[in-house]
């Protein structure tokens, strides 16, 4: 570990840096390496990380479908599972947005649960935002990543949580990496959770535009902070025959980008 690493001014007693890691259901199923990369970044920044066993999903699919009761039931489990952690961190703007912005609304009519939801909301952070805004990290000492990359800002990360500068700040410290921005960084990729399977034709038009925008930058890698968008974008890039690989930003920052990109062959 490099002693010159800038982990900022946050008080650094191990107890206050105790992080409950919210894996997210997509990372659990599709890309565990994102979870390990995120934990590596947190530990490197001085956090003690635990992964509560009782977690599954934030409940967003039910919430967005209008199934409030099921969403509440799932949220109750998440709230209970993370009750004791001073910080909760997820490698996703979407799931973090669900907990921070929507859990309190989900229990608007239940003062007791609303209080607990608001409490969790105040302790929950998206990974990039936690590293930069809470811990004051400015450099993750990532190894060189000698590629031209572009970055996809997820809608929930950008608009719900204000995440845009944080990943770029950390990526600026990655040696030999060049960042080329896409022309419409604030436009949705068309994932939208169940939206992409409920309205596949519309979603396809959106992700086609996004994939073409990405390919147009000449980047060899597209990075992002939300696996949902990345699965969607990678799936379209592969179907189009584009050679751009897609990765979660944590993989590059943690020096764990040696595994194949999302949807790439392991052979």
């Amino acid at each position, binding site marked *: 570990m490099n002693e010159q690493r800038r982990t900022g001014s946050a008080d650094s007693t191990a107890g206050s840096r105790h992080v409950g890691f919210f894996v997210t259901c997509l990372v659990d199923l599709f*890309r565990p390496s994102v979870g390990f990369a995120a934990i590596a970044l947190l530990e490197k920044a001085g956090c*003690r990380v*635990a992964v509560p066993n009782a977690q599954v999903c934030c409940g967003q*699919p*039910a919430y967005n479908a*209008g199934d409030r009761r099921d969403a509440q039931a799932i949220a109750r489990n998440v709230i209970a599972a993370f009750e004791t952690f001073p910080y909760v961190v997820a490698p996703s703007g979407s799931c973090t947005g669900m907990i921070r912005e929507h859990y309190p609304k989900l229990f608007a009519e239940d003062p007791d649960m609303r209080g607990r939801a608001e409490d969790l909301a105040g302790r929950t952070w998206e990974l990039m935002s936690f590293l930069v805004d809470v811990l004051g990290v400015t450099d993750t000492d990532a190894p060189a990543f000698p590629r031209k990359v572009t970055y996809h800002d997820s809608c929930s990360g950008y608009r719900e949580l204000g995440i845009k500068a944080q990943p770029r700040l950390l990526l600026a410290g990655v040696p030999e990496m060049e960042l080329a921005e896409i022309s419409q960084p604030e436009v949705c990729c068309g994932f939208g959770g169940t939206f992409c399977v409920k309205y596949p*034709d519309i*979603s396809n038009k959106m992700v086609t535009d996004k994939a073409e925008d990405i390919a147009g930058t000449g980047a060899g890698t597209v990075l992002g902070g939300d696996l949902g968008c990345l699965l969607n974008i990678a*799936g379209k890039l592969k179907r189009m025959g584009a050679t751009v690989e897609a990765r979660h930003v944590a993989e590059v920052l943690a020096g764990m980008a040696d595994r194949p990109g999302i949807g790439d062959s392991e052979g």
Partner: protein
Amino acid sequence: MQPTSHAFVENARDALANPKLHRALLNMKAGFQGKRAKAVAGLPEFEQLRERAKAVKDHTLAHLDTYLERFEAKATASGAQVHWARTGEEACDIIHGICQRRGAQTVTKGKSMVAEEIGLNAYLEARGLNPVETDLGEYIIQLRHELPSHIIAPAIHLNKEEVADAFYDAHKDLPPDRPLSEPRELLEEARGVLRRIFLASEVGITGANFMIAETGTTVIVTNEGNGDLTQVLPKVHVAVASIDKVIPTLEDATLILRLLARSATGQEQSTYTTFSTGPRRHDDPDGPEEFHIVIVDNGRSALLGTEAQETLRCIRCGACINHCPIYAAVGGHSYGWVVPGPIGAALDPGLIGLAEAHHLPNASSFCGRCESVCPMKIPLPSIMRHWRNAGFEAGLGAPSFRYGIRGWAWAARRPWLYRVGARLGRWSLRLLARGKGRLTAAPLANGWTKWRDLPAPQAGGTFHDQWRARQRGAGGPGGAGAGA
């Protein structure tokens, strides 16, 4: 015209297969977005103005009856005649009655979304009148018997060749060799025809962007000047407006006007902003002899006190539509009703019923861009969510999706069961991917794999399985060796 919102999926499929539509929508997006961004950047107090405008409208909606009655009293005192209509049908009947009493045949119309909503043209035509739209875009879609596809640019879905065809079809004395290939030529042709109609018109019907309670004034903003010719040349002016258009004071109007044009077209001010207070007085150089104001509810009062109330703050600038990726993909007609895009998805279920419109609030990725540009800070995604909740309660939507969500949620409440399911899902997907890293087809995922590959789960087990294995190997928390 009957709504076709229930057929949103089919409408959208047709729209997606229409390359001409996409070229037109691409132009729109590029123009409106850039111009709005520039106009907003040039007004440092834009955010403050949004907050103040929101507060004005919230206050007005909380005291709507008071302000509407105050408006009526002031408008009546200035010589206008105020009519109240509970439904679209009543409003049409009132307006038809005015035309009939004056023996009107030709009626000119300024652009009015509420007139589209209540089907005024069809109502008057069915009773032998000749209503003619005078806004260029509205004129074109009237010739084509279409609904507007955008609230500030009704013919945005058309290219100039389609407009020329509409003119060749409708303008009977138009020589077939008359060139109509340039926008300028199209404009001249429409202007020539409309000038004659303006002079023949006996009743002019406009909408109203605002009704000012303090003075009994109606306000319209236009860029073509057609609205002024519509309301000043004929002997009778009828302004039709929905109840949510009332605001307390002139000062409030100037506040909201500063937001309106900037949000809509990026202009600081529309070309024409016209305040109408009462009919012509003896010393006025021009103006109508009679001024009628028809105030329409048509379902809006039922939204008061519900989560959809905030849609009534809308000032119809179209910013949400101009920034919506769904609208940009499918165009306005796919929504199947007068107000498309995010504001349509939030408002239409309240006006035409959730059974008819339930697709509209569902067909959103909740990207939130609409809310971020709305000058009136309407929480459009939250209101769409309100309708989704109501739709789920009412059993609307595809049963396969509903049962799918309920089944998934049942498992997601039971971590041990979910882990077993995740293992099984992971194993099946990897088997189907056959080492290629992705699937080109997958059971239960046709919507996904029809258009894109499905990345296969990584080798090595689910995250939770790998994490537990590492925990056991390392003998406790914190020793996971995650960076290994």
